[in-house]
Every structure is written in C-alpha cells, then in structure tokens.
C-alpha cells in the first residue's frame, strides 16, 4: 500500500495538484465516526463525512486555520440545502458519493477514513480544472466558504473593514497577504 500511495503522491505532485505539510501524508485524515460538530441538512450523514474530509483536503490547516476549523463543511451543507438549484445540489451530492464509492473500491473503506494522501489521489481524478464540472464548482464553494469565513478572511488573508485611507502604491510586504475584500 505504501508504495502505491507514494506513487500516486508523486503523480499528483508532478501535476501541481497537491501539496502536503511534511509528515502529513501517511496520517489518517480523521478518526472513523468522528463527531462532525454540525448537523447536516443538505446532505446525508455519510455524505457529510466525505464533505468534512474533502473541505479540509482542499483547504487544510497550515500555519493558518483549515476549512474544518473555519466551519466550511457546514457552510457547504447549508449552501447545498439553501442556495443551490435542485440540479446542482444533486450534482454536489453525486461528487461526495462518487468520492466515497471510489474509496471503497480502492481501499475497502470510506473516503473520510483514508489517509490524506489516499484522499488526494482519489480527488485528483476529479480535480481537472474544468470550470463547470461538478467537482470544480463544489471546490469553488469550499474555497469561497473558507476565505469568507472569519478565520479565513482575517487570518489566511487580510481583512480591513474600515481602511480609512487609500494608498495606491505600497510594497506588498507591508500587507503580506491578499486582501479579503
């Protein structure tokens, strides 16, 4: 298993689709049956487990908070329940089901219980950069949710609700990160 995982990792990294903190690759992403901390309303409980893992896979905790800490899985669930058209909600649930089915086919267990490297390898088969693909759109919701969240907006990027002055040409180093808005 280890060699296969490494091979997939190498493949993914070569395409620039994956980057992991050192030592993270072999760790399981989440304990089986971990409490989500939120109650799904737009997806089933098993889809919610996949969503929880996928969101953190897309925007993991680094030196800044990850999607899970930022409440993104619940955000995506609320978006599926209260924003998406029925058709799009169905497509998003389909993505979650497909990831889980692939995990079971390859590894005999659910997506959420795989190591991050195994999750990444499966996700990479859907993550082709296609603008209108269900996976691409779901990823977009995750990233919008992350950078719009309070931890995302205020820690991962810079948030200044009342800037006061406008300075048109300053060193990037004075800001350090992108503005949230």
């Amino acid at each position, binding site marked *: 298993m280890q060699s296969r995982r490494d091979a997939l990792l190498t493949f993914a990294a070569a395409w620039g*689709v994956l980057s992991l903190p050192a030592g993270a690759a072999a760790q399981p992403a989440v304990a089986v049956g971990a409490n989500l901390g939120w109650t799904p309303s737009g997806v089933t409980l098993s889809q919610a487990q996949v969503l929880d893992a996928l969101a953190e896979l897309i925007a993991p905790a680094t030196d800044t908070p990850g999607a899970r800490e930022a409440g993104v899985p619940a955000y995506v669930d609320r978006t599926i329940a209260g924003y998406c058209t029925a058709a799009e909600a169905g497509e998003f649930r389909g993505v979650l089901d497909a990831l889980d089915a692939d995990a079971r086919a390859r590894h005999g267990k659910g997506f959420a219980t795989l190591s991050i490297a195994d999750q990444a390898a499966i996700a990479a088969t859907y993550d082709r950069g296609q603008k209108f693909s269900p996976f691409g759109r779901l990823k977009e919701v995750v990233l919008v949710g992350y950078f719009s969240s309070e931890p995302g907006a205020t820690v*991962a*990027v810079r948030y200044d609700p009342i*800037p006061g002055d*406008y300075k048109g040409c300053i060193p990037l180093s004075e*800001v350090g990160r992108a503005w949230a808005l």
Partner: protein
Amino acid sequence: MANLNTRWRQENTYDAIVVGSGMTGGWAAKELSERGLKTLVLERGRMVRHLEDYPTAATHPWEVKYPRAKLPPDELKAKYPVQNRTGYALTEYTQHFFVRDDENPYTEDQPFDWIRGYHVGGRSLLWARQSYRWSDLDFEANAKEGVGVDWPVRYRDIAPWYDYVERYIGVSGQAEGLPQLPDGVFQPPMEMNCVEKVLKAKTEARFPERRVTIGRCAHLTEPTEEQIALGRGKCQHRNMCMRGCPFGAYFSSNAVTLVAAEKTGNFKLRPHSIVTEILYDARKGRASGVRVQDEATGEVMEFYAKVVFLCASALNSTWIMMNSTSRRFPNGFGNGSDQLGRNIMDHHLGVGAMAEAPGYEDRYYSGRRPNGLYIPRFRNLGDAATKRSDYLRGFGYQGGAGRPNWDRNLHAAGLGAARKDELSQPGPWMVRIGGFGEILPHADNRVTLNRDRKDRYGLPTLRFDAGLRGNETAMRRDMKTAAVEMLEAAGFTNVVGYETPSPPGLGIHEMGTARMGRDPKTSVLNAHNQVHECRNVYVTDGACMTSASCVNPSLTYMALTTRACAHAVEAGRRGEL
C-alpha cells in the same frame, strides 16, 4: 361631504409637490423648502432613513447567507430576472434597495434592462457616484449635426449650477483643463495605483489627445464645514457604498438633500405614495396637484399645490404624464408634440479591453477605492485630427488596475496547502478599461403606455421598443479597437478586447422621454424644464434630456433641477405659474 372635501383640500394643499425622492427629487425638496415653499415629497416606496435603514452597512463577509452574497439562482429567476441583469449590483447586501420584477412588470418588445429602486432615496443610494460636467460639445451637437432637436440651453446657462451642486455634494477629482470635460469644484483627487500611473504615462505619451485621469466621484475627501454640519464625514474607502454609507461620505438624497430639507421645517415626506396622475384644472390652464394611490392600503387621494416637480426617474415621470389624460391632453400630459415616451436614450457599454501588467509583483495597495480611472472623450472633438468618418459623437472609458484577491480561478486544478497559500497572496496585476458611449436620440426608440397589462395595483404598465442603431454599432467597434491599442501601448501583456451585448437600460442612465427644446411642437419641456403646455409642472429628472452625451448624467440632472427650482420660485413670485 362638501365640508369634508374642503377640509381635506385645505389640509393637503402645499406650495410645491415633488414626485420622487431620489437624485433629483431630493434636490427639489431641498431647494424648494429652503426657499420657503411648503413642500410635499411623494415617494412610491418605503421609508429609508439615513444610517438606521442601512441594515447591511457593517455586515462582515462571514455574516451573509450565500456564497459571495449572491442570491440563490431560483430566487433570482423568480423575483429578480431583470434587476440581476447587471450581474454585480444585486446581492444580499443590496437586495432591499432593488424592486422585485415579479411585482413590477413591464413589456420588452426589444430587450430593455430597467433597473429600479423604489424607496426613499431611490437610486441615489445605488449610483456609481461618477460626476462629470457636460460641455458645449454636448449641448451644441444636435443643432450642429441635425440630430433630434437643439438643446434650449448652453454650458454657460448650467455652469453656475454645476458649481453650486458640486460645492454642496462634494466631488473628488483632478482638474485637467479639457474643453470637452470642464473642470469643476473639486475636493482632493483619489490616488491612482502603481499600474494606473503607468497606463497614464504611456497613454498620454503615445496618444496626445487622450488623457487618463482619476474618476470624478461624489465622495468627500476633504469635507467642508457645511458638509460636516450636515453630519457627513470623509470617505473611509470601504467601497461598500451601495449598502448605504455609515459615514455619509458619498452623496445620496438620504444622507444629504433630504436631511437639509428636513431642517427647513417646510418639508413633508409621504412614502408609499404612488402618484398616478397630474390633476389638470382646465379653467385655469394649470395643474392643481396630483392623484395618489397609497401603495399599502390602495386608498386613492389627492394633494394640491401651486407647482409640481416630476422627479420620479425618467421613465416613471414619463409614465405619470402618459397616464394623465384629460380633454386638454388626450395623448398624455403636455404631449401636444407627440414626443412623450420617444427618444429614449442610455449609454452603451460592455465593450473595451483588459490585460495583465507584469513587473509590479512586489507592489500592492491598501484601502478599497470606490472609484476608478476616467479617460475623457477623445473622438469628434470638432477638429480634423479627432474627426471620425464612421460615427457621430464619442465615448469615454472607465476602468482601472488591481490585483485579484483569493477569488480567482477557484475551479482550477489544485488542492491542499500550496493552493491555499497561493490564493492567500494577491494575483497578477490586471487592467481593464470599458467604454461608455453616447446613444443618439431616435423618435422610434420609445416607450408606450400598455393599458392591456396592469400591475398589482391595477395600474397600466410600460412597453419598451428601443435598441442600438448604426451609429452606436460603429462606435462600439472603435471603442474596442482604441482600448486595445492603449493597453498595448502601455506595454501590458495578454491584451484582450471584449464586447458583450449592451441592451438599452443596462447603463442605468435611461433618459430623454420628455425632452427639452425650443419649440412646443417638437419637445415637451422648455429651457427651464417646464412643460411647454402647462407651466407649473417641471420635469427635472432624466426624462428632460435632449441628448445623452457620453458622461454619467446624474450631476447634470442635479444641476438642471436646482436651476429649475430657482426658476419656479422666481416665476411663482412674479405670479407666472
């Protein structure tokens, strides 16, 4: 009953009635009430009080319900199919300032994007705040070219009123000394960013007739004592203007003119009041007041005054006039010319160019400037060098440079820490300039009253049949070409010209449907915005426009309104109304 009617009439008689509380209605309210006239303002929508009725003014991005604060697709389709056509304006932050299309229908024989806000303050809360003067290049164009009818005014007639309005509302901008875009009373200009300064330097070096300046916008950058006394403050560069400004830093009726009117003690505002017609007293040959249908209760009532100002927005003032029929005016109020509803204009847009600007990756900016660049008209300026053989009039560009934040290419392949870190840094510098082109008046570009289709109040609706024509189409080709050549001359990369459809209305500068002119046979209003055929009715919103220029029109509407108010007060004193 007779006594009751007499009493109602006494209690509901004013010196002046102003219909509408937006950009021009607010000004009419202020000017008339400050000059001592007991003034009633009738607004069809709900009350919006400055500050307290801006529910989203301080909302954080994590406090909204939906991704990017966009409304759900199903809701947009059901309630806002037209209002959403701008693509940017309608969000959770601004939803309460736009009409619901399902409740406010109209008919499009050709596409017409009618973007509306029915509430106190109207679209003065929502406008882009760009404030430019007209010049005689604009006022003389119809006469020189034999298009439409001649404007009955020239720049010298309006210039003092531009001064007056700019000084009061506060306009930030840079004096440029250009005859086609006269300078005004400016507060300090906002700063250009690094890449915009490059565009300016390179454009002006390569094309001497083109000027790149910072937008002139109705924001306070150095408030006057008068503005501070009104409760207004300096622009804080939040760029959340359309939610209502907690600092009163940009001009809106709510923050400025209605506040001033309130202070006079001569001012009364009645929301929920749909003016359905102008009452005409055939014996006196004058309007006696207006009929109102209460938007909430359906109750119909009348209000009376010596003078009526229609400031209900171009198409709603036109609608009121069309719906005001009498033996004297069988085809609509003051419509002996048959010009009412014709010559509808806007600005055509959605065409320009964009590019990347590599080489400034270590530079950024702070603050969200609620303003962009402006490139004033440089075609057909009256000399041989700028003369175009393929079209009349011209266009200006608006645009700017910036670095996209995290919200870029989110669908692109890539997961994990590297992607997250990448999005946490600003993207490449991008530049975009988009044209705003003049639309010529054309008698067959028109709106008519549709008595076969009623709204939920049982009132007739409007029917639109207007579109761009050959002059605009030819101009659009040049708008794209000239934009591309400027961005290329600036040394930017990946320069791409773009053109998207621009149905009339999308500029949200609809105008011209009760035009001013010198001759009652060919125009609805005279040189003072009075209805030729009924002198105590003034129309000072966009309906009055005889041509469109290519600059944003609100400043001119405001200047014309203040001028008309002064005229009305003087004419009233002389017993001429």
